């Protein structure tokens, strides 16, 4: 690939990630999160998109991103307050930005009208004078774009705090922490105060305590001035991994009792040197605890997950473990010293930087939060740290992963065959070979699980597209909708993920269009004007369940029934349970909306969803309560590589029927089987006649059908909803089988969906139930076309 093109491709890949970050930030803002870091994150995302676009000369994109970014900058600097309205405009702007990126990627155009109106909306957020001042008059003239274009590369490096976070961070911290020490020396006011000298010992950190948390706790009691004494920190080469070197001197203003202050140190009291001096009223009372203080020992139950502080962070870097002289030092209150004397700051920073890469959560330097008066920016930067220091990942070509998965699949089969052979050879179960094989089996399982986990992805990648869809559909039908998403991190095989998008889209559309009432109707019904739609993913019984739930009107059963009768889908006098009526909406050709809308209701609605889910080996069901809403649940296999199957035998062949198609199995009684015409048989199951298909004959393995009473009938339901009974000789059992494609080396065969390999190493065919059922319906089970030779 042309290097420039490949850089561009990388840019668009990054854009996708940035747009995702942006959207999740905006969604958080919509929920009222106006934390400066959230706004910053969104700003950075938009800014990076713009910066990259500048490098490639994508002017349309730059122009829009610039307006968007300016509005976000206003918000970042506090000139624009976050409101519900603002958040909604920003969210729509993010959709337009995504469109622009997509257009730039594919080389296509964007909806110019939408862009212009969006720009106008964004400008509307900022008052006019300010907009002029910022040069935001972008209405269609090219000059603004050119102006931006020149402007972009300059800004690029301006505000990227994330990249250099660790450095600035530590430096800011050290100086910020050192500064107040001067203040601490200032003449003391007349107000009562406590002077606390807090010197943690190594044991305190060893018990996962955290001085920052203690300091924060202390700050809750009153105004605090904290100074950090780093004079105990030795030169870098003498720095010990597990020692504690730092001492804090805290001046706590406010009239607090000694017990109150001491409470803060409850959990760490035994592991630190603590001196408390009452200042501001004479005579000074000294309350000091020596290293062997007799204060009641309290269990160290502080949160074990507490992040490391600076000292601990440094300790992680230098693995050499020496007993700490500093920790052993007597508890004499050290005088606060203004600045570290012999501290190798540069080295320290370098180490801290390295450590922050190693420990993502450590990078969230809680020291920055120790003193609430610390520079806000330093805190923001510290928080920005973990965002960049995510778990290291690599991008791998999917082909390579698939090859690995195939190889492991073969390994599993080979291992199963080997076990079976060994078992057949009559070797004792306790023999070394058998034991070794057991270990091999465990290992193989583990490898298989790990390999499948590589391809597993959180459903997030599908879910994250949905907020936008919901916004657009809601806008189109004039309803107010709040989308709640749960279980975004539920993992499922990539092959399944790719095919989840359509059914979910359809179900969400359906929920908004049909399920939810209009705002007026809702208010009349005593509900809030804003409807709620919940999209959730969860694991249940080795399958993934996707639920789409709305709090709308529920299914109008009399109406559904009426339509089904009118369309001839059910008999007029059919007796149906509520559940059965609800499920009528999955019938082909059923559409309850008289007016065909853009969104849904083309009469291909739910039956298409049902079919596409069944094609994935899944099931869909609905529960509904009038006036309260409906819930669709679809359950899908975690991977398309394995299938739950019923192993049957027919005409001496071993075949597998997908379990998702099977309703029940039964032994036919002679009186239930009736012939229609010469050889087509039907079987009567609970007063319903369904075709009885002899699998052996249908597949051409034998010419004369099996006498029905000597076989087993498996009642199946095809994806199209048709039912049939498959007549086989015997059922061998249920098994998970690995799906192997026939097309890869041969070609598709009517009536066979795929193949699999059984434990004995032989190939078994997986039945295509749909094809078998439809073939039988066409009354031509014997269309065996011998290919001309």
């Amino acid at each position, binding site marked *: 690939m042309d290097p420039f093109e490949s850089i561009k491709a990388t840019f668009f890949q990054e854009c996708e990630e940035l747009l995702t970050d942006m959207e999740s930030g905006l969604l958080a803002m919509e929920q009222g999160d106006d934390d400066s870091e959230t706004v910053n994150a969104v700003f950075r995302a938009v800014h990076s998109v713009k910066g990259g676009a500048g490098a490639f000369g994508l002017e349309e994109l730059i122009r829009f991103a610039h307006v968007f970014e300016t509005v976000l900058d206003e918000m970042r600097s506090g000139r624009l307050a976050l409101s519900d309205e603002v958040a909604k405009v920003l969210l729509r702007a993010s959709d337009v930005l995504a469109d622009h990126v997509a257009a730039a990627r594919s080389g296509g155009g964007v909806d110019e009208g939408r862009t212009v109106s969006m720009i106008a909306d964004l400008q509307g957020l900022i008052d006019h004078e300010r907009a002029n001042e910022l040069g935001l008059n972008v209405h269609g003239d090219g000059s603004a774009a050119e102006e931006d274009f020149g402007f972009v590369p300059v800004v690029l490096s301006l505000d990227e705090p994330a990249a250099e976070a660790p450095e600035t961070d530590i430096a800011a911290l050290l100086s910020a922490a050192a500064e107040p020490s001067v203040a601490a020396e200032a003449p003391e006011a007349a107000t009562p105060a406590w002077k606390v000298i807090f010197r943690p010992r190594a044991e305190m950190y060893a018990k996962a305590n955290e001085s920052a948390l203690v300091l924060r706790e202390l700050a809750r009691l009153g105004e605090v001035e904290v100074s950090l004494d780093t004079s105990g920190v030795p030169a870098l080469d003498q720095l010990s991994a597990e020692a504690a070197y730092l001492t804090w001197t805290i001046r706590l203003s406010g009239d607090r009792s000694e017990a109150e202050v001491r409470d803060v140190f409850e959990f760490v009291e035994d592991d630190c040197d603590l001196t408390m001096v009452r200042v501001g009223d004479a005579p000074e009372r000294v309350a000091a605890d020596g290293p062997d203080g007799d204060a009641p020992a309290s269990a160290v139950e502080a949160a074990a997950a507490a992040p490391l502080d600076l000292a601990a962070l440094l300790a992680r870097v230098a693995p050499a473990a020496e007993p700490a002289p500093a920790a052993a030092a007597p508890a004499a209150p050290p005088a606060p010293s203004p600045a570290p004397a012999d501290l190798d700051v540069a080295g320290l920073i370098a180490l801290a930087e390295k450590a922050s890469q190693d420990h993502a959560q450590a990078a969230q330097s809680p020291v920055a939060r120790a003193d609430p008066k610390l520079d806000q920016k330093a805190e923001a930067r510290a928080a920005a740290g973990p965002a960049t220091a995510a778990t290291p990942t690599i991008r791998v070509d999917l082909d390579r992963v698939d090859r690995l998965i195939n190889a492991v699949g073969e390994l599993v089969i080979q291992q199963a065959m080997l076990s079976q052979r060994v078992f057949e050879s009559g070797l004792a179960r306790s023999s070394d070979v058998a034991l070794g094989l057991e270990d091999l089996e465990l290992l193989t399982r583990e490898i298989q699980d790990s390999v499948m986990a590589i391809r597993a992805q959180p459903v997030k990648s599908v879910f994250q597209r949905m907020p936008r869809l919901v916004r657009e559909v809601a806008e189109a039908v004039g309803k107010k909708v709040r989308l709640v998403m749960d279980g975004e991190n539920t993992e499922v095989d990539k092959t399944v993920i790719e095919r989840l998008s359509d059914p979910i889209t359809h179900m969400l559309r359906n929920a908004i269009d049909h399920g939810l009432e209009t705002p007026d109707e809702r208010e009349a019904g005593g509900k809030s004007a804003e409807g709620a739609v919940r999209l959730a993913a969860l694991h249940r019984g080795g399958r993934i369940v996707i639920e789409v739930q709305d709090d709308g009107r529920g299914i109008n059963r009399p109406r559904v029934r009426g339509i089904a009768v009118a369309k001839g889908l059910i008999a007029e006098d059919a007796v149906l349970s509520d559940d059965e009526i609800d499920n009528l909406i999955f019938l082909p050709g059923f559409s309850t909306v008289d007016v065909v809308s853009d969104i849904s209701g083309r009469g291909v609605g739910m039956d298409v969803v049902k079919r596409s889910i069944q094609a994935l080996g899944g099931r869909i069901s609905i529960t509904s309560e009038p006036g309260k809403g409906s819930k669709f649940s679809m359950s899908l296999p975690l991977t398309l590589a394995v299938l739950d199957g019923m192993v049957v035998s027919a005409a001496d*062949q071993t075949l597998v029927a997908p379990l998702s198609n099977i309703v029940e199995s039964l032994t036919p009684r002679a009186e239930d089987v009736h012939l229609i015409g010469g050889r087509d048989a039907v079987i009567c199951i609970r007063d319903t006649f369904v075709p009885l298909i002899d699998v052996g004959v249908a*597949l051409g*393995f034998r010419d004369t059908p099996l006498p029905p009473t000597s076989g087993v009938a498996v009642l199946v339901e095809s994806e199209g909803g048709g039912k049939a009974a498959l007549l086989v000789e015997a059922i061998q059992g249920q098994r998970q089988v690995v799906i192997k494609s*026939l097309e890869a080396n*041969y070609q598709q*065969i009517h009536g*066979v969906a795929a193949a699999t*390999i059984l434990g004995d190493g032989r190939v078994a065919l997986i039945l295509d139930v749909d094809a078998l059922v439809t073939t039988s319906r066409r009354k031509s089970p014997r269309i065996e076309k011998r*290919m001309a030779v």
Partner: protein
Amino acid sequence: MTDTVTPGVAQRRELIAFRIGDQEFCVDIMSVREIRGWAPATPLPRTPSFVKGVINLRGAVLPIIDLGARLGLNTSEPTARHVIMVVHIGQRTIGLLVDAVSDIINMSDDLVQPTPDVASDQVKTFVKGLFALDGRMVSLIALDRVLPETEAEAA
């Protein structure tokens, strides 16, 4: 394909010769992946009679073509003495059922003679050319014609 005959350019290459009945055939050695003994195959429904079924080749489903039946020769039921040649045809891997593998031949392309007009259509479809070897006649098989659907395309 590696076994394309380029007229005018004498290219040396290695071929694997095998027997079906009393006739000798060969394919380019580069397209042969492995040679293994016959194992019972799982029959496929609605397939031409020359498709013997599928076998498990280390986890892959491998269709077996009875090459003799494909060429219209008289064939008997395969036994353990029969041989499956696993060959690549384009992106696919298939097994060819033959009686025995006989030889590896090193020869140049210019020795290949076009199939004489006497042969039936069926033979002409699958035989790309002939050559003489120590008084024997060896036919070069056109592998890409062996699979059924490829034939349908050609027809």
